[in-house]
């Protein structure tokens, strides 16, 4: 069974006047990296935010079903808090809290009840998983905002890892980073997929090609084509996919 199954997903903005996602059907495989590509405004960010119900933070109407491990997440009985612990998110702009590195990573677990020694362990493990421990382990009390963009983004990844998710959603995580930081984050993604299911939105096709196992192409709110990354970039089935991937339009 796929980790995430999306059936007939429709999302509307502005009190129903803007149809942002149209009948999207997609399956996300467990412990793989799935990339979502497409031109600006095609709905990929809207889609990814539907997976952890972050769309509800704005004025958004969602119709259709999203199953995670077989459970329909838009059901009335579903606890959004728990859902978001299970499905983490890393945003486009690094957004660490204006606190120390330690407090940033400990934020989630602390609120969920963890204390002291266990907290220290979680912080260390998360920072190690995010490939940031070596750089900051002697400066954990320093304010997060004093670090570089690449380090801040990896901190945000560590922070997301600290609440022990199963799925991590990345919304253009490298678009604000320089090439070296980008390469580090991409290496990190490849390492993480062993233990987590990863969905990444990117407008950088080469990144999608480098990093992902599966790719889905979105256009004007529709999911046009989905398949193995090698297939999408070597011989796409749909002409629109080919036009986008070859840069005929974008």
């Amino acid at each position, binding site marked *: 069974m796929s980790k995430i199954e999306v059936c007939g997903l429709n999302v509307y903005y502005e009190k129903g006047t803007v149809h942002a996602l149209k009948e999207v059907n997609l399956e996300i495989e467990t412990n793989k990296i799935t990339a979502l590509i497409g031109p600006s405004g095609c709905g990929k960010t809207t889609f990814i935010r539907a997976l*952890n119900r*972050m769309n509800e*933070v704005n004025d958004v109407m969602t119709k259709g079903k999203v199953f995670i491990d077989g459970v329909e997440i838009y059901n009335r009985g579903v606890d959004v*808090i*728990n*859902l*978001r*612990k*299970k499905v*983490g*998110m890393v*945003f486009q*702009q690094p*957004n*660490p*809290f*204006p*606190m*120390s590195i*330690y*407090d940033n990573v400990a*934020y*989630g677990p602390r*609120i*969920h009840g963890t204390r002291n020694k266990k907290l220290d362990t979680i912080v260390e493990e998360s920072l190690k998983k995010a490939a940031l421990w070596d750089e900051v382990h002697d400066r954990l*009390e*320093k*304010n997060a*905002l*004093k670090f570089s963009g690449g380090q801040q983004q990896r901190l*945000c990844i560590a*922070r*997301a890892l600290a*609440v022990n998710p199963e799925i991590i959603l990345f919304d253009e995580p490298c678009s604000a980073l320089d090439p070296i930081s980008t390469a580090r984050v991409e290496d990190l993604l490849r390492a993480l997929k062993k233990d987590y299911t990863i969905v990444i939105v990117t407008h950088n096709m080469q990144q999608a090609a480098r990093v992902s196992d599966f790719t889905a192409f979105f256009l004007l709110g529709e999911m046009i084509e989905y398949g193995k990354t090698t297939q999408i970039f070597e011989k796409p089935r749909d002409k629109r996919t080919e036009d986008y991937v070859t840069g005929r339009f974008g």
Partner: protein
Amino acid sequence: MKVKEELVKGGLCVAALLSVAVLLIVVGYVFVNGIGVISLNFLLESPYRFEYGGIFPQIIGSICLVAICLLFAVPMGVASAIYLAEYASDNVITRTARFFVECLAGIPSIVIGLFGLVFLVYYLDLGICLLSGGLALGFMILPWTVRASEEAIKTVPHTYREASLALGVSKWRTIRSVVLKSAYPGIITGILLGMGKAIGETAVVLLTAGSGLESFLPKSIFDPVASLPVYIYMMATQGHTSAAYSRTFAASLVLIMMFLVISVFALLLRNRYIRHMGRR
């Protein structure tokens, strides 16, 4: 033209200097005329026979009034601000609510004092007391606490909220742990502004708290309480002796000093908090 630039710069500089000069002149005048009376005795004694004695109850009274005032205005203000900024949707009702709060800021303090007199003192039968005075002052500074808190909360980047929510933290917890923490400097500024207005407010206190000449400390919040501004008013209008004259300025000096101390203290607190957020 370069000359024009220089002239403009010069003119602006003169304006700035004049502003500073006004402050210095006022404070200087008060200082010069009041310093003679200031002594430890003066500060620790109670007034007797109108224009003699010290201003101890007045000092304590002012402090108590501001305390009660803040006890009301700060929670009310911050809570309202949180509701308006975080929970309320942007519709006619909330916009009207905000407008009303703004209007409250424009009501002359004498009118607020009158309201306090009619409603708190007579209707609720609290009488002329610390509670009436404190509450009335609270009404007066409420717009400032609400406005400053709301601004501060709105300035917190939306990305912090999103990041917190995405970690599986509830909305209220997010507000408590991230938004308010970041907004504290702004909120404290609002409190500071309110305190400044409250401590020097005469009309409201005159009508609700006491005559200003009390020589005793209030034993409960239902007792009348003295305050520095009203004392100054009394001394200035009803005192005809040189003792009264100099006490007017002495009390003014003390009031200014208190205000300065509070301001500096709150500023240091705020700075320490900003730095604190980067440690631990």
